[in-house]
């Protein structure tokens, strides 16, 4: 799968989005998944091309259809269901065990 994450400099929501996106990728089955992180302050042209308005924005570009998520992705369960990804089995089991 191919993702692009647009962030705006160093701030709380940028950092959270990067962490969450990485976690999302790690939870995916198999290899060859790609996450590109683009700072719009450094690369406004790329944001222009992709017509990005809000930050953070996560684009799932492959496989189709394109999906666009806006926000720091803090509710990963919701993010996964929007992207129709399987639940993060191990971590969630562990979390459940602690409670």
């Amino acid at each position, binding site marked *: 799968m191919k993702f692009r994450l647009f962030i705006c400099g160093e701030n709380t929501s940028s950092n*959270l989005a990067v962490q969450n996106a990485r976690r999302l990728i790690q939870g995916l089955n198999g290899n060859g998944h790609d996450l590109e992180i683009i700072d719009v302050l450094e690369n*406004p042209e790329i*944001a*222009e091309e992709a017509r990005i308005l809000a*930050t*953070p924005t996560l684009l799932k570009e492959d496989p189709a259809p394109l999906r666009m998520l*806006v926000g720091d992705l803090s509710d990963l369960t919701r993010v996964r269901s929007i992207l129709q990804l399987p639940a993060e089995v191990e971590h969630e089991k562990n979390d459940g065990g602690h409670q």
Partner: protein
Amino acid sequence: MTIALERIITGIEGLDAILEGGLTRNRATLVAGTSGSAKTVLAVQFLAEGITKFDEPGVFVTLEESPDDLRKNMIGFGWDIEKWEREGKWAFVDASPRGREQPIVAGEFDFGALIARVKNAAGKVKAKRASIDTLAAVFLTYKDVDIVRRELLLLTEALKELKITSLITVERLHEYGEISRFGVEEFVTDNVIVLRNPMERERRRRTIEVLKLRGANHNKGEFPFCVTTGRGIAAIPLSAIELKQHSSNIRVTSGNDILDRMCNGGVFRDSVILVSGATGTGKTLLSTQFLNGGAAKNERCLLLAFEESREQLFRNAQGWGVDFAGLEKAGLLKVICMYPEVRGLEDHLLAMRMAIEEFKPKRVAVDSLSALERAGHPRGFRELIIGLTSFIKTKEITGLFTATTSTLVGGASITETHISTITDTIILLRYVELFGEIKRGITVLKMRGSKHEREIREMLIDEHGMHIKEPFRRLAGVLSGNPQVLSEPFSPDGDSHAEAYSEDG
């Protein structure tokens, strides 16, 4: 002591007069309007005028229409966006949602990307102006009003830092009531302009109102405006231009020697004459002679006719010994016939102004105003008269308007009561019943800033045109149409050159 804020001339016709000198520099102005109120046209024109008139490049942030649609839709106004893009004077920030599903909100976010893109585009073209069109799209996508308010503030701050003057359009649902859809947008910007497009008498009547211009004076209230092909928005700043009229003391002929004498040597050049009378009293004849008098002095004359066809007008003129066809051929006359009902009064005003600008006449006759009056709202009609009068005066043109009275003898027309204070000179044409005969009478009722004759003279019409005869003697009540014969001359000393002097309307 207050320091006047620096202004930026928008270049949009009429708007700068309403703003009393343009928008305040480096500030953001919210433009609120219902759908179809010409917000996008205004937003594009703001940049277009900047580029063409002041060499001020601009950034256009489109949140609704695609850049391609805008390029195509705006070419009809004469705005070649693509060319300006090539020349590096126009940059799009494309945030239109075309061909893409709605983003899904998952957590905290801001509009950092938009601001970064605006800054980038502004830097590329060295922008002095920006338009953001329209915020409704953003609100619909991101339903959090607080976020939009906060981000809008950040955006306007960023524009201010870049020393950019900006317009931000926003959609309203109703013509009156809350300014903006979400009720927060207007608090973020320094200035607010409202565009309206309400129905009045089965016609759309566009108006523009400057609601707020922080720290600066502006004209208040709604002003009509038109949107026309090849030109865009043109507002009609009635009260604003009315004050700037200047008048000259140069006199020109009315086209009739005796009438000139009645007016103490002719009418003033930058003045407007109202000719009022019932049907058949000679109004069209008087305007024909007025035009002929100008053409005889090699002045270009324009006739704007709303009642009779071209053929009819030419035939009439021929009947009075005036050769309209020959004058047109010589380039001294232009006759434009328009049907009053085909468009709204604002559009009529604009069409008349454009005709005047194109032909550059020294004289303009409008025959008749009453026909126009029937085509619109009384308020719109008054605005048209004010707009046309002031336009004529600033162009150093002599104007003659005719108005038809509804009753055959005596009486005043509605037109007259509406506009008599606006016109400088009023000439009355009346039927007079005398000894069982209908005669025609003519008198100068008022002439601002000049002496004029007060008597009512008899007027004859034949194949050579108009002949003004001696004043009616020993009669009273001529204007009412029912004169009484007096046994003694009315004037104690028998002076036939009694004069009056009108100080003002």
